[in-house]
């Protein structure tokens, strides 16, 4: 990130020129297709974007080159320097970090004979770092082009590279799923909301989905319920947004439904980028029609005619399954014009991200859908009034939307009776880090953190003692052993300066240095800040440089105070939640794991010296 990305010049072949022109002509007229076009052009040019290719795209789309470059350079998946045939993206975020990603980096660098950022002389491999791959259940993990390899060890890395060198590559389309099945199904099938079809159906088959009652809820909604009825049902269910902020979905819908402005849009937020968060992928890969059905019902409820699914660029298999599902559903009339013979028409398209965590923020996501840099907008106005293309837009997480079909089928009351008063329904919980069995389950909200870790995660691995758990994702507080009996719901976790967030729990054992983890997380934040607002643009980096100073044994307690001060200024003045987060884990770690900090100030951290 620190280097200047000067586009390298390369003469394009006549075929490449033609292909680029074709892509631009095909997608160019569709609003907001800049990122998909850049992805396609990058494929055409062999995993990178030469200056000439960017200039050609600019000319074909009649977008000034300087502007185009600015958009492109926001997204880390694009490269303006030549890359190898295989791009190895090694995950460097906290869940992989605590599982030893740094060792894997050493192995890769040695095996490939290159440093991170380099390309092997045979042009085969480029080694890159990446922020969370979203496969924390198999940390440490890397992705080679579309395929994820997890639970990496030295031997495994060597074997994979050998295979790739020998041409024995993996086709991601042939995989059942990106990683491993859910840890368990604690709920009986009829009590499940999100996972009832997982491993029960072929995710590429519409018939399978329909055979298990698929699209019945959509039919019920559009043929027998009014818009307000649907919204009321969702309100009754009291489902809160599953992306992390927990805003009641039905309430959100009810603000937008009355707006006379059209068209309206439904956006499904599938930019699963919060470190430790791996839940939406399970639904998209295992039961993609559920997502579509939920979107269509939401679309009906608010009067939208089009939906976008914004999928993070690394989720190739999710996109494949979703696109297949869209094509099938459209062919069968579950999507498209006059659904179930009614006046309701609804179409869905997939929009791709390009490696930017901040695009999970709903307004940044909207900007990205519009083909811009993913800067969060200043709110108000909220997307419900001014969203995609300036029109009323509902942005909901995959998990939220996927809950809708069952809510409509079984009723809001049925749903509300699950979980707790504060957090109704079921949720996909994720437990990652130092546990014996990292992974996901669907369970009723309100389960304690301890039960998740011990019963489903199999307890702290290797018989080690529990030290800390970062709740909800990278943005929230750390909790201690004594706080593990807290039920997983918004209120209770909030009360101990933690958060439900996306429902992920990153477990750290006694060998973990908290300063080292905080440094890793702050690296992530300074890398993923969009750079729009000053407090975040500068504050995230100041925090990272301060924690590095502390980690290096060069800090003082004054530097710790300075971190708190910076975090507070960011909280008080920043534009979006990204910059408001660091204060929470800085504060909780300084309060609860002060010894770890002091050990670094004194240069006596034994964990980091090992």
């Amino acid at each position, binding site marked *: *990130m*620190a*280097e*200047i*990305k*000067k*586009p390298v010049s390369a003469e394009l072949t006549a075929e490449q020129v033609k292909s680029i022109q074709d892509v631009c002509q095909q997608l160019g007229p569709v609003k907001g297709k800049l990122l998909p076009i850049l992805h396609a052009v990058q494929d055409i040019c062999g995993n990178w974007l030469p*200056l000439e290719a*960017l200039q050609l795209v600019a*000319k074909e789309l*009649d*977008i*000034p*080159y*300087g*502007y*185009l*470059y*600015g*958009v492109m*350079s*926001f997204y880390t998946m694009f490269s*303006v320097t030549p890359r190898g045939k295989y791009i190895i993206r090694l995950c460097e975020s906290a869940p992989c970090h605590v599982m030893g990603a740094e060792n894997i980096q050493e192995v890769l660098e040695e095996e490939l004979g290159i440093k991170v950022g380099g390309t092997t002389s045979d042009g085969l491999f480029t080694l890159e770092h990446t922020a969370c791959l979203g496969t924390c259940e198999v940390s440490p993990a890397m992705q080679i082009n579309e395929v994820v390899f997890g639970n990496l060890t030295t031997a495994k890395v060597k074997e994979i590279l050998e295979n790739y060198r020998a041409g024995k590559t993996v086709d991601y389309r042939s995989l059942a799923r990106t990683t491993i099945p859910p840890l368990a199904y604690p709920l009986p099938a009829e009590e499940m909301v999100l996972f009832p079809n997982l491993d029960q159906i072929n995710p590429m088959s519409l018939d399978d989905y329909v055979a298990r009652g698929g699209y019945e809820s959509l039919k019920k909604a559009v043929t027998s319920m009014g818009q307000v009825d649907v919204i009321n049902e969702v309100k009754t269910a009291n489902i809160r947004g599953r992306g992390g902020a927990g805003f009641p979905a039905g309430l959100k819908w009810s603000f937008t439904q009355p707006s006379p402005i059209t068209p309206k849009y439904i956006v499904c937020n599938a930019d699963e980028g919060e470190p430790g968060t791996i839940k939406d992928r399970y639904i998209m890969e295992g039961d993609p029609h559920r997502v579509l059905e939920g979107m269509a019902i939401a679309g009906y409820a608010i009067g939208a005619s089009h939906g976008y699914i914004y999928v993070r660029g690394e989720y190739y298999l999710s996109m494949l399954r979703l696109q297949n599902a869209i094509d099938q559903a459209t062919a069968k009339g579950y999507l498209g014009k006059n659904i179930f013979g009614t006046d309701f028409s609804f179409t869905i398209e997939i929009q791709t991200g390009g490696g*930017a965590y901040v695009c999970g923020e709903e307004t940044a996501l909207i900007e990205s859908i519009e083909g811009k*840099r993913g800067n969060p907008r*200043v709110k108000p106005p909220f997307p419900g009034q001014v969203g995609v293309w*300036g029109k009323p837009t509902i942005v909901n997480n995959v998990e939220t939307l996927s809950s809708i079909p069952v809510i409509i089928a079984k009723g809001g009351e049925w749903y509300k009776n699950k979980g707790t008063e504060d957090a109704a329904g079921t949720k996909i919980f994720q437990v990652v880090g130092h546990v014996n069995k990292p992974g996901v389950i669907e369970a009723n909200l309100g389960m304690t953190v301890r039960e998740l870790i011990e019963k489903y995660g199999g307890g702290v691995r290797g018989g080690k003692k529990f030290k800390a758990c970062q709740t909800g994702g990278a943005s929230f507080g750390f909790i201690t052993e004594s706080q593990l009996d807290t039920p997983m719901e918004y209120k209770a976790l909030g009360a101990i300066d933690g958060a439900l967030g996306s429902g992920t729990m990153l477990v750290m054992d006694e060998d973990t240095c908290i300063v080292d983890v905080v440094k890793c997380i702050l690296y992530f934040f*300074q*890398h*993923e*800040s*969009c*750079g*729009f*607002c*000053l*407090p975040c*643009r*500068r*504050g*995230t*980096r*100041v925090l990272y*440089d301060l924690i590095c100073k502390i980690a290096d044994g060069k800090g003082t307690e004054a530097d710790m105070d*300075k971190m708190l*001060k*910076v975090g507070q*200024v960011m*909280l*008080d*003045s*920043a*534009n979006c939640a990204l910059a408001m987060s660091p204060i929470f884990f800085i504060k909780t770690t300084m309060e609860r794991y002060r010894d770890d900090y002091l050990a670094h100030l004194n240069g006596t951290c034994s964990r980091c010296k090992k």
Partner: protein
Amino acid sequence: MVNLTIDGKAIQAEEGSTILQAAQAHGMRIPFLCYHPAIKAIGSCRICVVEVKPGPPRPQPACTTKVAEGMEVVTNSEKLQDIRRELVKFMLINHPLDCPWCDKGGECELQNLTHELGIAEVDYEAVRKPINNDFDSKLIERYNTRCVTCGRCVRVCKERVGASAINFENRAYFTDLGSGQVPLNCEFCGTCIEVCPVGALINKLFKYGARAWEMTATPAICQFCGGGCDYEVHVKDGQVKRVRRDEGNPLLCVRGRFGFGVISSDQRLKAPLIKKGGQLVEVSWDEALDFAAQGLMQVMAKGGPSAIYGIGSPRATNESNYVFQKFFRVVLGTNQIDNPGRYNYWRAVEGMAQVFGWPEIDGLNPEVLKYAKPFHSTLTLSEEAKGKGFPFVMGQTAKLKEADAVLVIGADVTPEMPPYGWALMEALQKEDFRLIVANPRKTKYDRYAHKKLRYRPGTERALVLGLMAAMVAANPDLAPQLPAEGWAACKEILQGVSLDDIAKQTGVAVADLQAAAATLLQAQAPAIIFGNDLLAQANGKENVVAVANLFLLIGQPANAGSGLYPIAEKNNTHGVCDVGVVPNLLPGYQPLAAGEKFGKIWNKVPSTIPGLTLDEALTRLENNAVNAPQAFYILGGDMIRQLPNSQRIRSILQKARFIVYQGAFMTEVAKLADVILPVGVHAEVNGTYTNTDGRLGQTRAAVSANGVRPGWQIITALSQKLDQPLEYASAEDIFKEMVSLMPIYVGLQPGYRWPCPDLKADIKGTFVPFSVEPEALGEGDFTLIVGKTMGHSGSFTTFAAGPMIVNGTQTLQINAEDAGKLGVAAGDTVTVSSAQGRIAVPVAVNDDLPAGVVFLADHFAEPLANSLTSNSNLCRVNIQKG
């Protein structure tokens, strides 16, 4: 209005305004950095955060938070000041301490903020960003080390200029301003420099030129297009160092911002010259004026006053042009005058007049004010005052943004009239606004157009006919909203038009015609912009008749923005016509028969015999016709460059017995002169210009004329030599006399436009039939368009360093496919030939041109584009490699 309190003070603010605006309106300061009044607020620097009750628990940016009834705002609590201090400290991390040599020193907003907040120490550190400065781009230097990432430049370039040439690159801490790691390739308007709060963007022409506090600012009017932007010239030690516009409207174009070098150009004519023994030699003013007077008298002695022909100047002030026509009408006694607009803008005037009538204003108060402020009209409106004629359907730039549909036809907006372009950008912010761009080649606004009509060069009238026919076909009951004569006959013609035939002739598909027609028909406030591409054709006037007919059909001038927007080529193209530098009309478009009124003031009734048009005058001399003019008195310009068929113009002028050239530069025409009288340019003189809107701009002498004289003073001096002195004390004095004779200028004063908005108008039109015969272009494989390019205004700006840095050489623009067929690449020389002549010119490959169409600019002396043309800006040419 909304009631709220700011820091305990109860105030009222306009609904929809922001807290920042409300505070500013009441003289309360909230510090800010990313906010700029000319651009939309984005709330990214957060310096302006304030506490708002009721509202979110965290402080909110004042620049984006709207006022609400009962709101309580705190702007200056200790907590807020603390946040601001920390944020400015963040900004100062690694900020270079190069203030001593940073051009922004003394007017730097970061300096001021740091000072205001009392920051004496920056106790934060962060890694240094890699240096990413840009010294390679033309005219503009970029210092990312100084950049505070406020994004004003990026936003102004995108929102207001419409160029989007710069953007943020990368993200997070490493977010940087840039143009894609290659040098800038933009319009070089430099507006980015103007809005930069710090010294991240530097004007290369100004660099190290002066400290901010060393310069004096004088208001002036830009001379480089018909827009007549008002700006300030900043002068140090008698030299113009830079020009700036006000904060609320910082927009200027490349020639406006960087073209002031014409003033101090080495190539300026500095002393009078006369021809002695075939050589031009420097002489005193007195000798030159004697020589000029004698030369003119000798010609008159033989051929009478009508043997002398005057050509006015679209760059000279109204006052100079007025005195010029008076010199001919009173001192010499002839109407033999015209202006170069004859070949361009005058066609718009005549075409619009044919459909909507000549301007007439009746019922003004008979008294002429004795005491009026300088450059204010001395005439006043009475209750029954009424006006009519084409000016009442002409639009004005400031209202263009309120139009709901704009058709741009035969104009490349940005090079010809940047202010129209900026207005279009404002209009484009409205969701329901529709833009239709019709041009044979791709122009800048194609990017924003909802419909593009790519017609064959010279088929504008067919296209307009097609649009009108499509409207009638779509709505058989269609009738103009304005009172109009001849609609029935016109409709019948339109009903007989075959859209297929139109499509065949123009190359525009029937469906596109229909779609564009539908858009215009639906519009409540349609506007039509047209310019040089259409006016400079031999049939330019008929083109305008067609366009005016279309407007008569769809126009709704009562609705803001709806109007005809012809592009006046130069700063006073409109004015030179207004003040009567035409052979058949007195100042204010009054007929020669109205001469009695003028006689009372002029002490001589002007002749009622119309003079020849410039075209006729030149043709007569060419043909040695009886009564052909034998001498010319020319106010500046370069007809050889600018008029079609340069060789012809040159050889005709060579036949003249005597030429007086009163100009600023040694142009091709000046080289043929017997006397050259050097004249002052805009920042050296006092006076007024009338811009394309009819808006009066006042220019003031900001620098010494250094021996050259204001145009009117030279003319009056010459009148003295001819023993019929025209006597004026000042430009104000001339203006006062002039406006007392010009009812159309009633109510006019600097910054106002004519016709006076308080004047009741009686608008009506007549549908005037027009032919759709394509222009005869000669023979050849390619159609050549000679037109305007960004950076230049006529020949004038080719004498200034700034525009020449950006656009310094003539190139033949040709598309890649045609270039390929000719076997030439960019930079290769080709020979372009027509029946009139041939030139060798380097090629620039430009896919904005369609196949078979090539383009040359009319600005450059060498090679001369107009040596190929015949009587139009279009002609057929052959092109050969080498």
